[in-house]
């Protein structure tokens, strides 16, 4: 493995800035790494070698000419395939969009390009971000770099695995119910779901508009913060984008790494522990809590009683919105068109044939579930009630944040499960999101960082939640915990992946 791929984004940025390395070298090193491990990992759906190197060359030239460049200029990045990239195939993991070349860039992609960050390629995902294992990708699953017989989580398993396997220093993910945080947890990486509206959704192929949020995937809290700083900020093309200026998250992370946590109250959410959570996961969680206490934080217990209904509310709201968002995939304007095998070829029948052939099983399941929840006669009982639960979840968070500055829980109840283990049991798959979903319902930010290896030698995740617009708190406290963990462990958890993956 090349040295350059083991560096964090912050370290790469520093060496690029000092002229020690070039962006072409950094980008090529990661492309080489991709070439070496993709056969085992399959984190990417498309690798944009030429374009990434061209972008790297351009930023090198600018630097050579003495240009004042953004901090991450020249640092390569991977982007989840649910984010549209002009001129680069974007599929959202679906046959429906196989080969589709978007004529425009998502706002966050515009920002990556403006920051001089070469885009290595588009990462694998569950089809239209529907899933918790990346097994629902139409183009084959991604494998967990810690154990390639296991899933990397989902839906953003590709971005998390790419970062964990050193194919990219950082990556963009999206999180509708945990799709950044849960893969981060099971791949031993860091993932952040920002406050709803912190990162523009313009150009994100929507799953559930009121829940979707793009965010960073990284190997360190600081790297996540650096990437959040690049992709975040107000966008007039997204009506739900927050207009208020955000503080520098990288500064928050840097301060946090040094910080004493005296006076900080950390709330453990009673409803997000206990039954269903593996003992190994809980054990690592408790150890990290002890590190926080040792750093001066006060740990309190809080209760969020309506969280027990959050999963149900989520699995009504998300499919409802999805059923409408995915209606546009009909074979009329772009993407797949399939003609009916028999009978007249009418627009209506071509739409149905296209959607029957183009959507995978999970997409069909959710679209039909959402159609049901929105249909006449059921709306009040399902969608209407779920919206009320959303209110209750928000109230629970409001009350809890009166008692604590941040809330914490294990990110996911288990470590990575074997490929195929839950593919035929949708409810079991859905329960992976139990701890991550409440943040999406309330629009608040959440961060997952490793808490260690559970008894099965697989990573477990530690989730930190903050009030809306207080993303900086995640980075400050996350970085503080991370520093103590590294001290306690004698280095980052991700370092322990190497002996194993060398044999992969």
């Amino acid at each position, binding site marked *: 493995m090349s040295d350059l791929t083991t560096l964090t984004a912050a370290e790469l940025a520093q060496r690029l800035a000092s002229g020690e390395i070039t962006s072409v070298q950094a980008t090529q090193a990661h492309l080489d790494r991709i070439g070496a491990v993709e056969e085992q990992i399959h984190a990417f759906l498309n690798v944009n070698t030429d374009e990434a190197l061209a972008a790297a060359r351009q930023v090198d030239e600018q630097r050579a000419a003495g240009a004042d460049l953004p901090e991450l200029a020249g640092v390569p990045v991977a982007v989840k395939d649910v984010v549209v990239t002009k001129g680069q195939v974007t599929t959202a993991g679906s046959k429906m969009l196989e080969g589709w070349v978007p004529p425009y860039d998502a706002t966050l992609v515009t920002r990556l390009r403006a920051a001089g960050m070469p885009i290595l390629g588009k990462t694998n995902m569950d089809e239209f971000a529907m899933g918790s294992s990346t097994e629902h990708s139409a183009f084959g699953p991604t494998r967990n770099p810690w154990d390639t017989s296991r899933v990397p989580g989902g839906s953003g398993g590709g971005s998390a695995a790419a970062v964990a396997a050193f194919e990219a220093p950082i990556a963009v993910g999206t999180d509708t119910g945990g799709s950044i945080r849960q893969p981060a947890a099971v791949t031993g990486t860091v993932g952040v779901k920002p406050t709803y509206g912190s990162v523009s959704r313009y150009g994100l192929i929507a799953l559930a508009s009121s829940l979707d949020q793009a965010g960073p995937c990284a190997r360190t809290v600081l790297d996540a913060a650096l990437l959040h700083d690049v992709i975040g900020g107000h966008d007039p093309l997204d009506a739900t984008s927050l207009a208020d200026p955000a503080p520098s998250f990288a500064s928050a992370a840097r301060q946090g790494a040094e910080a004493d946590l005296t006076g900080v109250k950390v709330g453990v959410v009673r409803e997000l522990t206990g039954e269903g959570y593996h003992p190994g996961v809980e054990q690592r969680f408790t150890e990290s809590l002890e590190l926080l206490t040792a750093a001066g934080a006060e740990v309190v217990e809080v209760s969020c009683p309506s969280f027990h209904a959050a999963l*149900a509310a989520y699995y009504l709201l998300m499919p409802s919105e999805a059923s409408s968002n995915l*209606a546009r995939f009909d074979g009329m304007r772009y993407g797949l068109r399939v*003609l009916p095998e028999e009978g007249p070829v009418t627009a209506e029948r071509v739409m149905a044939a296209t959607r029957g052939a183009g959507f995978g099983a999970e997409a069909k399941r959710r679209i039909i579930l959402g159609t049901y929840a929105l249909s006449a006669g059921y709306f009040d009982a399902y969608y209407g009630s779920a919206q009320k639960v959303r209110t209750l979840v928000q109230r629970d968070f409001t009350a809890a944040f009166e008692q604590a500055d941040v809330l914490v829980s294990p990110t996911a109840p288990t470590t990575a499960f074997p490929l195929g283990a839950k593919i035929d049991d949708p409810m079991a798959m859905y329960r992976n999101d139990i701890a991550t979903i409440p943040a999406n319902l309330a629009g608040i930010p959440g961060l997952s960082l490793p808490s260690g290896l559970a008894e099965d030698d697989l990573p477990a995740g530690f989730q930190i939640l903050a009030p809306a617009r207080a993303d900086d708190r995640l980075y400050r406290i996350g970085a503080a915990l991370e520093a103590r963990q590294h001290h306690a462990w004698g280095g980052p958890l991700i370092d322990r992946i190497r002996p194993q993956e060398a044999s992969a």
Partner: protein
Amino acid sequence: MSTLNTAEVARLAALARIDLTPEETERLTGELDVIVEAVATVSTVAGDDVPATSHPLPLVNVFREDEVTETLDPQEVLSQAPEQEDQMFAVPQILGEDA
């Protein structure tokens, strides 16, 4: 209220414009029935006095000024269409709707 049968799933699939094979309908009916039963609990949680939340953050009045912005190159968009003709999207014959 969570008893879904294959006829209902077929109706929903038609509403969602998705062709399902009989096997798919059968399998989905079983799966959806389990899911619906699990999620149906939401209706028992919140009382009438609880307002609905449609947007996670309570923003209002986000407007765009009435200004023309850049448009797409029609050929670039149409090059991605399954079929095009005369700079338009060609679609199969449309039946059963407004002339």
